[in-house]
C-alpha cells in the first residue's frame, strides 16, 4: 500500500498515517531509512509521530518514554509497540508492506 510521497516526512521527523483501523507513525531517519510503529504510546496515549528521534529510538513527547525504532520495545517497562514493515520505492513512494 502506498502511504504517500517520502517528501511528506521531513528528515528526522515522523508523520502519522491511518490504515484501516490502525494508526501508524512513520519516521524518516537522518540516514535516509524509514521505520514504522504503532502511533499511540501505550503509557498515556501520546502521539509518537510528534516525538523526537535519532537512529535508534523515538521519545514520546508527553512523558519522554522511549521505544526502539527497529523492535518497538520500550526502554522502560511498557508494553512494546507494533512494528510495521515500510520502505521507499524507486519513485520515492512510501510503501507499507502487507503484514
Amino acid at each position, binding site marked *: *500500500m502506498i*502511504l504517500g510521497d517520502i*517528501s*511528506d*516526512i*521531513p*528528515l*528526522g*521527523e*515522523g*508523520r*502519522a*498515517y*491511518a*490504515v*484501516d*483501523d490502525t*494508526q501508524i*507513525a512513520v519516521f524518516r531517519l*537522518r540516514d535516509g531509512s524509514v521505520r514504522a510503529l504503532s*502511533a*499511540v504510546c501505550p503509557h*498515556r*496515549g*501520546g*502521539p*509518537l*509521530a*510528534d*516525538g*523526537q*528521534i*535519532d*537512529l535508534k*529510538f*523515538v*521519545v514520546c*513527547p*508527553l*512523558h*519522554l518514554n*522511549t521505544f526502539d525504532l527497529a523492535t518497538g520495545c520500550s*526502554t*522502560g517497562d511498557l508494553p512494546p509497540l507494533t512494528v510495521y514493515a515500510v520502505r521507499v520505492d524507486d519513485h520515492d513512494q512510501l510503501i507499507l508492506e502487507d503484514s
Partner: protein
Amino acid sequence: MPQRLVVVGNGMAGARTVEEILARRGDFTITMFGDEPYGNYNRIMLSNLLAGVEDESGIFLNDLGWYADNGITLHHGQRIARIDRFSKHVYTSDGTATPYDKLIIATGSRAHVPPIPGIHRSGRGYHQGVFAFRTLDDTRNMIRYARDHERAVVIGGGLLGLEAARGLQNHLSHVTLVHSAGHLMNAQLSAQAGDILRGSVEKLGIEVVTGARTTEILGKHAVTGVKLADGRTIPCDVVVVAAGIRANSEVAEISGLVVERGIVVDDQMRAQDEPDIYAVGECVQHRGETYGLVAPLWDQARVLADHITGKADAAYHGSRVATKLKVAGVDVAAMGLVAPERDDDEVVTFAEPRKGVYKSVIIRDGRLVGATLVGDIGKVAFLMQAFDRGLALPEERAELMFDLGGPSAEVSPAEMADDEQVCNCNGVTKGTVVSCVQGGCKTVNGVMDKTKAGKGCGTCKGLVAQIVEWAAGGEVEVDPAASWYVPGVPMPKPELMRAIREHRLTSVSSVFAKLTPGGDEDAKSKMGLASLLKMMWGDEYDDERDARFINDRVHANIQRDGTFSVVPQMKGGVTTPAQLRRIAEVAERHQVPMVKLTGGQRIDLLGVPKDKLPQIWADLDMPSGWAYGKSFRTVKTCVGSEFCRFGVGDSTSLGIAIEERYQGIEGPGKLKLAVTGCPRNCAEAYVKDVGVVAIDGGKWEIYVGGAAGAHVRKGDLLVTVDTAEEVIRLTGRFIQYYRENGNWLERTYAFVPRVGIDHLRSLLLDDSEGIADSLDAAISASVAAYKDPWQERSSPVTPGQFRTSLPLTVLS
C-alpha cells in the same frame, strides 16, 4: 447471615469507623444511635461556623441520605441509656431494646463545665447568657444570642476557648478571655510561647486575662458579669465556657465496663474483658492516654475496622500527637514535649515577640522529641516527619527552624521507610530506587531513566542521588554524564561551546557528527543543542526542525490528549476590550473546549488540534505569547502607580517594555518575570526568575533566581537602580549571562545560588571580568533577530508541519 453491628454515637469517631468498615466490605447489618438530631458533622468546623467563614451546610460530613444509601439504620435524637452485656442488647432511655452481635461505643466527649456558682439556674440548665461550646446547637444558640448583646467573656484559654473568642468577635464588640493557668494553651505551649501567642491574640482585639480563676457568674435574670478570685469583676452579657472536655463514659460505666478517665480499651480497641464491645474516639482511654484531637481518632477507626473485619494483626499502639492549627487566626504547631525533661535534652529556641513568632525544638539523643511553632510554621512538615519517624536531624540545628536557602533539610536515606515516596510526580518509592540499584544499575542517571524517579518536576533529583549512593554502598559509579550539557555529547557546557565555535558547527546534526564518538545522534540531546546553537549563532544557526521538540515545531504547548494550547501575547497582562472580543470570537468560532486565565496573566485557549493552529493564529492576528518554550515567557505586572493608591512606580509600563524587548528569547530553561509597583508584591516579583520591585523614591529593585513552582525560593537582590532603562539593560545582561552559562534545563533558582549572588554582582555590575559589553551586545543581537513564530501560519516551514498526529482520517 450478617452480624448485627450497633454503633452508639454518631459523631466523627462513630461515623468514621463505620466508613472504614464499609470500605473493607465488612458483612454487617449496621444500626447507629446519635444523640443529636442530625447526620454527622465536622465538629472541628464549629469554630468556622461561629466565625462566619463556613455555613452549616459546609460542615456536614454525611447527610441523612448517606445512611440510607449504605443500608444503615440511624436513630438520631435517641440516647442510649444502658447496655446489657450479657443478653447483648442496648436500651434507649424510653426502654426500647436493640440486640447486637458487635457493639461500638463512640460517645465522644462533652464540654467540661466547672462548678462555678451562678453558672446554672436551678431547674433551667445554664444561666441565661451562659453557653458551652461543643455542639451544633450550642453554636447556633450562641450566635443567635450574641447578636443582640455586646460583651462576652470566654472562660478557658485553651484551643477551644481561643477559637470561641475569635469567633465571637464576629458577633459582638468586646471579647475577654479568662484563663486560670498562667499562659494560653498551657497544655501544648511553654510559658514563653504562650505569652507570644497572647500578644498576637491581643492584637486582634481580644482582651486576655491569665492566672484568673472565675469564682462567680453574676446577674439575677441574665448574666451581667463574671467575678474573679482576686475580686475583680468583668462586666459582660454573654459567657462561653470552654474549659476542656470530659469523656462521655457514664453509660459504659453504669453498664459495668471498666472506665477510668475514659473507657479502657486494649490495642484492638476492645473494652477490657469484653470480646464483643469496642470503643473509639474521645470517650476512650488507651494505654493511659485520652485524646482530644482528630488524628488519633482516625488511627483508632482504622485499627478497629481492620480488627472487626477479620484482619488478625491489627493493633493500635497509641498516637504521637502532633497538631497544626490556626488558633484564632494565628498559626500554631505543637508536637511531643512542651519542655525538656532531662538534663541533657537539647533545646533550641528562637523568639521574636514583636512579630509574634516563636520556635522551639527539643532534641534527645539526636532525635526530635518536641517542637513548638507559633506565628511561622514554615518548617512544620519536616518537623512532623522527623518527629513521627525519628529521622536523623541536620547538624545545623537552625535548619530545623529556618529555610537557610540551601536544599531543604536533608533526610538520611538510611532513615527513610521503604514505602516512602521519593518522587511525587511519578510515584516512585525509596524501595523501587533501592531495588533498581541492587539490580545492577549503579549510576544516578541510569536509575532515574529506569525508575522515572526525578523525571517529573525534578525537585527530588538530589534525594534520588543520595539514595542511589547509599544503596550502592560506596560503589556508586561516577557518572561522567552528570556534568555534560546534554546526555549525548560528552562535554560540559563551556567545553562544548568552545568546540562548537572552533569547528563552526552551526547545526545540531553537525555537532553530533563532529563531537560524539561514532558520530551518533541522540534524540534526548537535540532540544538542548538546538537552544544552545540558536543562542550562539543567531541568524547563522542552521535550524534543522527535527532538532526541535514538538512544542517548538508548532509553537504551542502539547497537552495530555495530544491537542495544543494557544496563548497569545498579552504584554504585562494588559489587554483591551477589542482584544478580548477577538479572543472570544475565535474561541467561539473554533469551539475551543476551554478558555482559561493563566498564572502569567494571559488567556489560554486549550484543546486546539494541531491542524487548527494556523487558522486560529490567523483569526487571532496576535503575536505568540511563547507559553511553550524554554524561553522568556511573560512579565506579570500590577497596576502600579497608574491606578493603585499604594503604587510607587509605573510597573505596567516597565513590564510591557521588558516583554516587548525580550519576548521569546531562548534560554536553558524558561524565564518568568514580574514587575510590581510596590513592595506589597501583588505581581509576585520576589518569586520570579527576574522580579522587579518599585520602592519609594523612584527606585527599582531587581531580584534574580526566584521561583514559586515545585521549588519555592525568594530571589536574591541583584541591585537597586534609579531608572527603568537601567532595569531593562541589567535584565538583558542577566538573561544573557544565564543563557551562556546555565546548564540545560537549569532554572535560575538553581543557577543563581550555584554561581552565587555576590559573584553575579561583581560580573554584571562591577564588570570584574570585562564581559558586560559583550553580554549587552549579544542579547541585543538576539533581540534584533526576533521573529514572531506564529507568522509561519501562512507558509509552513516543513511538509505537514501542522498535520495532526492523532486521531486521523483513514486512508482509503
